[in-house]
């Protein structure tokens, strides 16, 4: 059997749904960040697979490099927020960050 486009799309769909499960179920902020990274990686696999099988150019790979850059910037800022939150509330759990709740 030759490995085609739909195989890569299935792998990326599995990664995406596992990332969504991680974001929805975890209380710890760093765990939620790991779920978001899984979602970004699944989108990257989609981009590169379409670049190889569909388009004749490398635009998909370039887009994926930009996604990696943005993911790095996002993790830095998100961890800054998590650390500040931990300093304030002494807990890394996201559902205890309810200071603004009326």
């Amino acid at each position, binding site marked *: 059997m030759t490995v085609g486009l739909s195989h*890569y799309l299935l792998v990326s769909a599995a990664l995406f749904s596992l*990332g969504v499960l991680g974001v929805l179920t975890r209380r710890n902020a760093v765990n939620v960040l790991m779920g978001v990274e899984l979602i970004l990686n699944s989108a990257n696999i989609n981009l590169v697979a379409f670049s190889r099988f569909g388009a*004749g150019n490398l635009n998909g790979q370039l887009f994926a490099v930009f996604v990696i850059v943005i993911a790095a910037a996002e993790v830095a800022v998100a961890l800054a927020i998590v650390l500040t939150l931990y300093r304030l509330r002494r807990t890394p759990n996201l559902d205890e960050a309810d200071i603004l709740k009326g």
Partner: protein
Amino acid sequence: MTIEAAVFWALAALTVGSAAVVVLARSLIYSAFALLFTFFGVAGLYVLLGADFLAATQLLVYVGGILVLLLFGVMLTHKLYDLDLRSEVTQFAPALIVAAGVFVILAATAVKTEWATASPRPPAPTTRSVGELFLGDFLLPFEAASILLLVALMGAAMIVRRRRDA
């Protein structure tokens, strides 16, 4: 089964299995190290797809940068004397239903659609072509990404700074 198919299934199993461990593990450190294997699996899939520069970038930035930052985050958000790095799970059943629904929809779309595929080119080194695209057609996003990184760096440093007057 050809060698390429065997390698693909091995890498897919590594990636999806490690992602399952990331999401379902009890301890935070197990999740972080399973994420490492997920990134390696994804880099292997990039090599199979002929994206060698992207695979190297993935390893350098994701494993060498983002994973190290996440491990710092894990270590800095727990009390030092309390080494029980357990992570709690809330509302597992509804989230499982939602995630399974998302997977079914995406998988059905992936398998049933008649994608307009051309036969793939033979794999070639992509570093030179990607570099020419960065400094040619995609110069503006490239410069914008540099500014984004600068702003993110400054923003993260400002958020985490200890204020003297607080």
